[in-house]
């Protein structure tokens, strides 16, 4: 105990992790920030242009569309992951038999490669040949739906995939939080005459609000950085209707080879993530104290 209380020992133990974090996370961010001040195609000369790339962000019609799409994407993904994750966790806490099996089944999609999941849903959404969803619609006498070509349907169709894939992770986190609530508190509420719903909303949810906030942050930031599903399913199309900030950044940086402007978009994504985290933290502080 005396060893750990000394500041020097604390610094020594933290040093490797801080060093790795600096090299893998902080340094690339700084380098990217440097690139964002230049006009560079990756091969030729790097030309310093100051904040021009950031000025161009405000006039970029496609970037603004991608930002709007990302907000809708976040709403759908976070909504699915948090709500479905929480509901399944609550239901799981009441299950006595086969709990382990159900947990595993719900968790399996989270362990799958995102490319595989995207290909799976590509087949599900397919019209030619008829995919699973359109076959089910056919049984209900509904015409096939071009989920991935329709301007109005493509973004929700893409969002649902990521939302679905990681429900299992949030289910596990919520479940762990729910079962860690002291049984004595639940017993006391039983004695006071509270029913299951009252226990859930008045006791359990307030007691795990830090976990809920943390999940919002994880889910929200994950959705803000969402890339693989959209890129693999539709490449952000048709006509940018499923374009996200990260897919647009990728195309600008690696297809158009405009590394300077692509880096500026990457910095924007980072800043938006920070704003999101700070907002959630301000609403519910993770350390357990509440905002007045």
């Amino acid at each position, binding site marked *: 105990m005396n060893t750990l209380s000394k500041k020097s020992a604390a610094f*020594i133990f933290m040093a*490797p992790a801080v060093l*790795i974090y600096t090299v893998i996370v902080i340094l690339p961010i700084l380098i990217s920030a440097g690139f964002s001040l230049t006009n560079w195609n990756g*091969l030729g000369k790097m030309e310093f242009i100051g904040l021009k790339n950031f000025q161009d962000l405000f006039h970029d019609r496609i970037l603004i569309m991608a930002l709007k799409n990302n907000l809708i994407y976040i709403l759908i993904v976070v909504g699915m992951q948090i709500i479905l994750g929480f509901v399944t966790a609550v239901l799981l806490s009441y299950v006595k038999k086969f709990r382990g099996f159900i947990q595993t089944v719900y968790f399996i999609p989270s362990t799958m490669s995102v490319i595989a999941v995207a290909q799976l849903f590509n087949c599900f959404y*397919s*019209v*030619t040949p008829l995919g699973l969803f359109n076959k089910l619609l056919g049984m209900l006498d509904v015409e*096939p739906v*071009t989920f991935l070509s329709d301007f109005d349907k493509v973004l929700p169709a893409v969002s649902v995939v990521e939302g679905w894939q990681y429900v299992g992770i949030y289910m596990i986190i919520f479940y762990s939080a729910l079962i860690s609530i002291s049984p004595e508190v639940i017993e006391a509420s039983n004695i006071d005459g509270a029913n299951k719903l009252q226990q859930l909303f008045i006791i359990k949810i307030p007691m795990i609000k830090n976990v809920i906030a943390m999940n919002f942050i994880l889910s929200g930031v994950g959705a803000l950085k969402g890339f693989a599903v959209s890129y693999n399913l539709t490449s952000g199309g048709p006509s*940018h209707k499923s374009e996200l900030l990260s897919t647009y950044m990728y195309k600008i940086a690696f297809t158009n080879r405009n590394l300077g402007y692509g880096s500026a978009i990457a910095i924007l994504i980072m800043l938006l993530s920070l704003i999101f985290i700070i907002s959630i933290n301000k609403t519910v502080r993770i350390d357990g104290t509440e905002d007045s």
Partner: protein
Amino acid sequence: MVNKKLKKCASLFLVMSMAVSMFAGCGSKNETEEVQTTTENTGETTEAAATDDTAESASDESGEVKKITYFTPKVPSDDVLAIFQELAEEYKAEGHNIEFILETADTDGYDQKLRAMATANELPELFDVDGDSFCQELADAGMVVDMQAFLEEIGVIDNFIGASLDYIRLDDGSLYGIPWEFATDMFWYDKDVYEKYNLEVPKTFDELLENCRILKENGETPIIVDGADGWFYLRYLAMIPFRETGNDYVYALKSGDAKMSDPTGMETLQFLQDIGQYFQPGCTSTDYSTSLELFLDGQGVMYTAGTSLLDSFVKANEEGKNFDYFYMPLTDNAATSANEYWVFGGLGMAANSATWDDDVKGFVEYLVKNFSEKYAQRGHFPAQNVEIDLDNMDDLYVRIANDNENIGDVYTRPWDIVLPDNVTTVFNDNIASVALGQMKPEEMAALVDEELEKQ
């Protein structure tokens, strides 16, 4: 007290061990070796540093194995790759200490990874290029070997079919890739379905659209497309301008002397929208291999594809299908003739100038001198002239070989190769919407013109 000190020391020791092992792990990737390379520009032997991954020094005398990595977007089942691997084994059997490493990636992944490699100055020994703006940038940076000079040096340049070489040449005529195939593109169609509805092979685009209308009215899917890839739509977009102007219009777009909103541009965008209604439903999620499977399975009547897929159609005909082909139709006022259409050399093999040593050079020379005959034996058309025994070939192959003998002087240039990357991106992002009727041709033209103005 002594125990506490011992514990402290043990803790410190563990932390330091972890830190040292971390540094050791990071360090091994950055070791460099000095190797001798021959630069493309001076022809002199210079010493250059190369990364650990690409330049283990190798010589037949020392017995060390020279690793030659070839990075390509070709599918692993491609006969070109199979023949390369065969030839690599034969080359090794002749006593050359090389290890041929084949690295493949899908088309999108290949482009991004190659660009990242170029930026990091870590190109593999061999990789594939098109004659596009990226290849030009690599050439300007001195990162690729002058293949014109190399092919002249080894005395094979005259063996190559001019059209194959021209496909990969840059605008200034320079050559940085070696083509391996001579491929032509055409419309493949199900003859039985055509006969069922008494349709004639279309000679003009109007006749093609009329055939599509009749097929659709009868419940058929007229055309199967690889709708997931923008370049597929660009093939359709390029046809009418090629018929009316040759390649003048696309090069005028590139140079700024023409706009997409010009009459030629608007005509071809309208054509794409007209024909797009005859593509299979949900085509935007159909990738290249799925589109081929759909057509071979009889899910559609027509499909544009090149002779690189000839063996698929030959095999399908042997199994009972009745596929045939026709070339790009004409317009009423065509400036190009019926025997002028799509000709491809396929992707060209480029070489990293930083690792272009005698080992790599010798191996590529072996490939160039021994590839074409093997490729022809497998029912393909190689980029070099070889004697082909047509008596043993399928009827489709024989007819196409005869067509190749009579091909014209002008070949359609792919728009995704001629136009700058940012303009191609605009096409790739939006062209499907035009084909599906979700975006007006005028809107598409405006987007393209806006991007062209940035050049």
